[in-house]
C-alpha cells in the first residue's frame, strides 16, 4: 500500500505542476458539457421551416378551403410557416433562396376539393436524403387526413386516445438523458488516454526500467495508476455536473448507485489502458492506440443516441463494449432510478476492471527478453 500511495502521490504532483495537463483535465469536461449542452438543451418540440405558397386566390383573397388548410398546418405548431406570394415562381425561388421545403396549394384547389379531385404539392428532399423529411411528410399526411375528414363531413368517432404518463419522477429534458453518457464518455477517455500516456511516457524516460529493479510489483504499479485515474475521473464528473447544473439547469444528480458505477468505470478503463500500454512503446503511438479504442466505443455504446436506433449487428457489437454497460447503468441509476440495473452494471464494470487489471499485471513486461 505504501508503494501504491507513493505512485499516486507522484502522479498527482506531476499532474498539478503540469499546466497543460491541469488545463485540459478541467477544460475537456467543460468543453464537452458546453458543446453538447448547447446542442441538446434546446426545446424538445422540434419545429421545421416550411414555405407555403397559396395560389388559390380569388379576388385577391385566398379561398375558404385553402385558408382552412393553411390554418390547420399552422395549428400543428410543428411548422414555422413562411408565406410566399402567390405570384412568385416557386421553382425559381427554391433555387435562388436555397429553400428546403415548400408546400404549394395550387390554383383551383377549392373547386377541386368540391369535385373530390384536389391535390397539394410538397417540394422537399426525399427522406433518404434528409431524415427530417419523413417527419414533415408524416405531419402533412395527418393534416391532409383531418382536412379530408372535416371537408367531407365524415369525421370518424374517437375510439382510442393516448394518456401520457412519464416514467421518470422529475421533469427531465433531453440534456438530462445526455449527462450520464457524457460522464461515462469522460471516464473512458480520461482513463484510457491517461493510463496509456502515463505508462508510455515513463517507459521512455527509463522510469519503468528503474522501478523494475526495485521490489515494486507490476500489480502495485497498475493499482497506483488506476487510483490516480480515479481521482481524475472524480474531478471531471464534478466539472460536468457543475457546468450542467449552472448553465443548462440539468436536474439529474448521481445517487449512491451512480457513484458505485462511476468508481467501477474509473477502475475498468485505466485497466484497459494498462493492457494496451503493454503493446505501445512510443508516445506517438500512444494517442493513436487510445483513439482507436475510444472512438468506436464513443459511437457504438449509446453515448449520443439510443442503441435501438442502430442496426442489429452493431447492437451485438455494443454488447461487448464496456462503455455500453456504464452508459446503461448510469442512465438507469440517474434517470430511471432502477437500482437493480445499476448494481448489475456496476458488477459487470467491476468484473471488466478486475479482468483487465489482472491481465495487465500478467502481461506487462518490465523484464526484457
Amino acid at each position: 500500500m505504501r508503494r501504491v500511495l507513493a505512485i499516486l502521490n507522484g502522479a498527482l504532483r506531476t499532474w498539478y505542476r503540469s499546466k497543460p495537463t491541469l488545463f485540459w483535465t478541467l477544460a475537456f469536461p467543460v468543453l464537452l458539457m458546453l458543446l453538447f449542452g448547447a446542442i441538446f438543451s434546446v426545446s424538445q418540440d422540434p419545429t421545421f421551416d416550411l414555405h407555403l405558397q397559396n395560389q388559390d386566390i380569388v379576388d385577391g383573397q385566398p379561398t375558404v378551403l385553402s385558408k382552412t388548410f393553411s390554418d390547420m398546418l399552422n395549428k400543428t405548431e410543428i411548422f414555422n410557416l413562411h408565406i410566399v406570394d402567390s405570384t412568385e415562381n416557386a421553382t425559381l425561388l427554391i433555387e435562388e433562396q436555397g429553400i428546403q421545403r415548400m408546400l404549394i396549394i395550387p390554383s383551383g384547389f377549392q373547386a377541386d376539393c368540391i369535385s373530390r379531385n384536389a391535390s397539394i404539392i410538397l417540394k422537399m428532399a426525399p427522406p433518404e436524403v434528409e431524415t427530417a423529411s419523413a417527419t414533415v411528410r408524416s405531419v402533412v399526411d395527418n393534416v391532409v387526413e383531418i382536412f379530408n375528414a372535416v371537408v367531407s363531413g365524415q369525421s370518424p368517432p374517437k375510439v382510442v386516445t393516448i394518456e401520457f404518463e412519464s416514467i421518470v419522477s422529475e421533469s427531465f429534458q433531453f440534456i438530462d438523458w445526455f449527462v450520464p453518457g457524457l460522464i461515462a464518455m469522460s471516464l473512458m477517455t480520461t482513463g484510457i488516454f491517461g493510463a496509456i500516456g502515463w505508462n508510455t511516457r515513463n517507459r521512455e524516460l527509463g522510469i519503468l526500467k528503474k522501478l523494475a529493479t526495485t521490489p515494486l510489483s507490476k500489480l502495485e504499479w497498475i493499482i497506483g495508476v488506476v487510483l490516480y485515474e480515479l481521482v481524475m475521473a472524480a474531478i471531471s464528473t464534478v466539472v460536468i455536473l457543475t457546468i450542467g447544473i449552472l448553465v443548462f439547469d440539468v436536474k439529474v444528480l448521481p445517487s449512491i448507485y451512480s457513484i458505485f458505477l462511476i468508481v467501477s468505470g474509473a477502475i475498468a478503463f485505466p485497466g484497459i489502458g494498462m493492457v494496451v500500454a503493454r503493446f505501445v512503446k512510443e508516445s506517438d503511438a500512444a494517442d493513436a492506440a487510445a483513439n482507436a479504442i475510444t472512438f468506436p466505443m464513443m459511437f457504438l455504446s449509446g453515448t449520443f443516441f439510443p442503441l435501438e436506433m442502430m442496426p442489429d449487428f452493431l447492437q451485438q457489437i455494443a454488447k461487448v463494449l464496456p462503455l455500453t454497460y456504464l452508459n446503461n447503468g448510469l442512465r438507469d441509476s440517474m434517470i430511471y432510478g432502477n437500482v437493480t440495473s445499476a448494481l448489475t452494471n456496476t458488477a459487470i464494470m467491476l468484473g471488466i476492471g478486475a479482468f483487465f487489471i489482472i491481465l495487465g499485471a500478467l502481461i506487462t513486461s518490465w523484464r526484457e527478453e
Partner: protein
Amino acid sequence: MDMEVAIEVKSLVKKYGNLTAVDGISFTVHKGEVFAFVGPNGAGKTTTVEILVCLRNLTSGEARVNGFNVQDRKGQQEIRKRIGVLPQDFNTFDLLTVKENLIYYKKMYGHGIDIDKLIELVDLKDKTNALYKNLSGGLKKRLAIATALVNDPEVVFLDEPTTGLDPRARRDMWNLVKGLKEQGTTVFLTTHYMDEAETLADTVAIINSGKIIAMGTPPRVNIKTWRNEDFDRQKGRKAIIRSASPNSFRSKAGKRRRCCRSS
C-alpha cells in the same frame, strides 16, 4: 578487503536470435570492490548488467548476486531489495523536486538512508526543492545516482554513469564512487572510458563482442595501453575506448561519433 563474494558469474551466455550478445563470460566481484566493465558500445556491458539486476533473462550459464540466483523468482525479490541501479540513459520525473524524487524511490523499498543526508552526499543541498527538469545535465546525473542509493544498497550497478557529462561533472561523479567505495559498498560500473576504469576500479574486465578479453587490476591489464585499435584488431570492429588524456578526449570526439554509428 573482505573477500566475500558479491557477484558471481559463470559461463554466462545471452543470445538474441542468432546474435550472441554475451558469449560465455565468467567473473567474480568481491564485496567492497569497485569492478569496472570496460568495452565499446555493443560489447555486451549493458546486457550483462541487465541480467544481473534481473531485468533480462539469460540464455545459459549462471549468475548470482549476494548469493541469490538471478533466474530464481525468490532470488530476484531478494536481489531487488539489496541492489541499487542506475540504468543507462535514465531520467526521472520531470515535475518532481530532487527530494520528492528520492522519497518516491525510497518508498519502493520501505527502508533506506536518510534522504537529507543522501542529498548532502550527492552535493545537491542547494537544489533540494528544485524540479528535476530545471537541473543541469551533471546535476541530473547526480540525482540519478542518488536514486540508486536510496535503499542503502549492498551492491550498486552504475551503467555508464558519466556518459555525456563534461569533465568537471565526471570528476564529481568519480569522487562520489570513491566515497561509496570508502563506505564499503560494492560497485559494478560499466564505462567506455579507460581513464575512468583506471581511476576508480579495483578490478577491470575488458569486454568486446560479448567476450572478456582481459581482466585484473588496472596495472595488470595494462589499461593505459588499450586503445581503439586493440578492439579493431580483435574483431575488425570500430570501438570507442580512449585514453585518459583530455586532449585525446577532445581531439577524437569526431572520430568517436563515427565509431558509434558503425559499431
